[in-house]
């Protein structure tokens, strides 16, 4: 691989966008706004929204998945045999696990530790950056929900000169919390209930659907063949399979079939490892997969005093962009979906410590159970 080239100057793009950057609203627009703002009443307080809590998994199997091209050289064959064996065993377990009703448990809770490895090579020299970041997600239908990530840990190894290419990358891995950031990924509009439940059929359906943008959030893009070129596509599909497996509400047969896909042929036909532009290789994800969650009966319904929490879409629509900066912590003690018990903090602790522990004590400043 060649040394990383300096980024291309963007002068042409800045020149292109300069007229837009200088665009000003005409005076009539300002006058219209002032007259409307003078006439509009103050903000209507949002109604309280009911929150249902997520129940947690009691059967958790930690599966180390090295599905995606990472720093290591390509491995011939279908993949590391131990991982494949674990996945096949997990598939058998998953097929027997019940799935609760959406009304009983609208969110699927997962705790992950993302591990990303970036690599640059040049004339025999190698530099690697490894980032690890713990995260929690509460994912509902259509990738709604909340996610929270802790501080990521980074380490570099290899050639120091080449490692300068990673400058700034680790800044993207600081603590954060917000709505699930699935964005416009290839499965954005997928309804998992429409997926087949056999290994080959689910793999073919997902790969073809991703290839043709079937589940794109943009109607005009659906049916158009896009996506990463060549060898990146297989790993991209596998990455999406893992996301689906970890976060989506699949039926037990679907979950078993998807685990079987990952065990046998995660990247599908085509080259498994393709260097990305500038010599970087794709991420390697180590996922802690909670299999076949056994949910408890519906927990006591609680309402958040400040209202717009629970369903982030409600929050987005209501706040049109979320809480303004600087206002966090005033009206929203916690923006996460409730997990159990009347206290968000307590519930969070409960999930971290033991998903099956009894509900923690009330926190009258945050929630009013049963209202």
């Amino acid at each position, binding site marked *: 691989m060649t040394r990383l080239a300096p980024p291309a100057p963007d002068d042409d793009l800045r020149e292109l966008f300069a007229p837009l950057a200088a*665009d000003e609203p005409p005076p009539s627009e300002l006058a219209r*706004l002032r007259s409307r703002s003078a006439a509009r009443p103050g903000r209507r307080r949002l109604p309280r929204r009911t929150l249902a809590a997520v129940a947690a998994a009691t059967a958790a199997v930690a599966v180390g998945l090295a599905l995606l091209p990472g720093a290591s050289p390509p491995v011939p064959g279908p993949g590391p045999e131990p991982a494949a064996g674990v996945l096949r065993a997990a598939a058998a377990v998953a097929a027997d696990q019940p799935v609760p009703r959406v009304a009983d448990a609208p969110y699927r809770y997962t705790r992950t530790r993302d591990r990303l490895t970036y690599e640059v090579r040049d004339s025999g020299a190698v530099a690697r950056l490894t980032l690890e970041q713990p995260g929690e997600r509460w994912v509902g239908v259509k990738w709604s929900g909340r996610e929270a990530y802790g501080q990521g840990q980074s380490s570099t190894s290899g050639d120091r000169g080449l490692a300068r290419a990673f400058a700034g990358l680790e800044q993207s891995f600081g603590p954060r919390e917000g709505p699930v950031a699935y964005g416009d990924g290839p499965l954005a509009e997928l309804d998992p209930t429409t997926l087949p439940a056999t290994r080959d059929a689910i793999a073919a359906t997902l790969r073809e659907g991703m290839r043709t943008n079937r589940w794109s959030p943009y*109607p005009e893009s659906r049916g158009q063949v896009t996506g990463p070129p060549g060898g990146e596509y297989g790993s991209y599909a596998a990455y999406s399979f893992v996301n689906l497996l970890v976060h989506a509400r699949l039926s037990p047969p679907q979950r078993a079939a998807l685990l079987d896909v990952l065990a046998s042929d995660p990247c599908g036909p085509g080259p498994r490892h393709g260097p990305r532009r500038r010599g970087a290789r794709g991420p390697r994800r180590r996922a802690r997969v909670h299999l076949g969650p056994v949910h408890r009966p519906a927990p006591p319904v609680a309402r958040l005093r400040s209202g717009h929490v629970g369903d982030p879409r409600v929050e987005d629509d209501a706040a049109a962009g979320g809480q303004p900066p600087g206002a966090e912590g005033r009206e929203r003690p916690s923006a996460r979906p409730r997990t159990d018990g009347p206290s968000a903090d307590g519930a969070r602790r409960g999930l971290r410590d033991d998903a099956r522990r009894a509900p923690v004590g009330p926190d009258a400043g945050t929630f009013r159970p049963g209202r």
Partner: protein
Amino acid sequence: LRSPAVPVLTATGTVPAPAASRDPGDLAGRALVVARRTALGVLGDRELAADVAQEVALQVVRRRASLRDPAALDAWVHRIAVRAALREAARGRRRREAEQAGAAARDVAPEPVDRTLAVLDGLPPRQRAALTLRYVHDLPDAEIARALRCRPATVRSLLSRGRDAVRARLDEDAR
């Protein structure tokens, strides 16, 4: 560090900063400017962008009391505006109708910004949003990611694909 093509308008920058004021008129005007540029880049249509900018500015005025840090006004407006514009972009039929009306309007009164919008035309809305936030508002990846509710790596991908598409169109125009 690159220098932006135009002065970056921030509440604490060197440009006069109406954002630092809690006066509704100043806030509204500033929000209208920021939101209009963002919405125009995402939607490519003046009428729709004006509507979105109006709604965004009104929300800012109504919720100004919750803004504790005036310096964060622009970031707040970016987030609201880009999400409102993306929601508008998702309303396909209405947008197409408006695009037709906007095209007719542009036939009558072309402006310098029309070339920019023509190059952006047809790009996915999130790519347009990422490009606009970078090259119009000069936001870093992390801020764009917050506005688009995605990861910074996704922003880099959106920008890369957007740059490639825009440059391909510029090359075509140059031939």
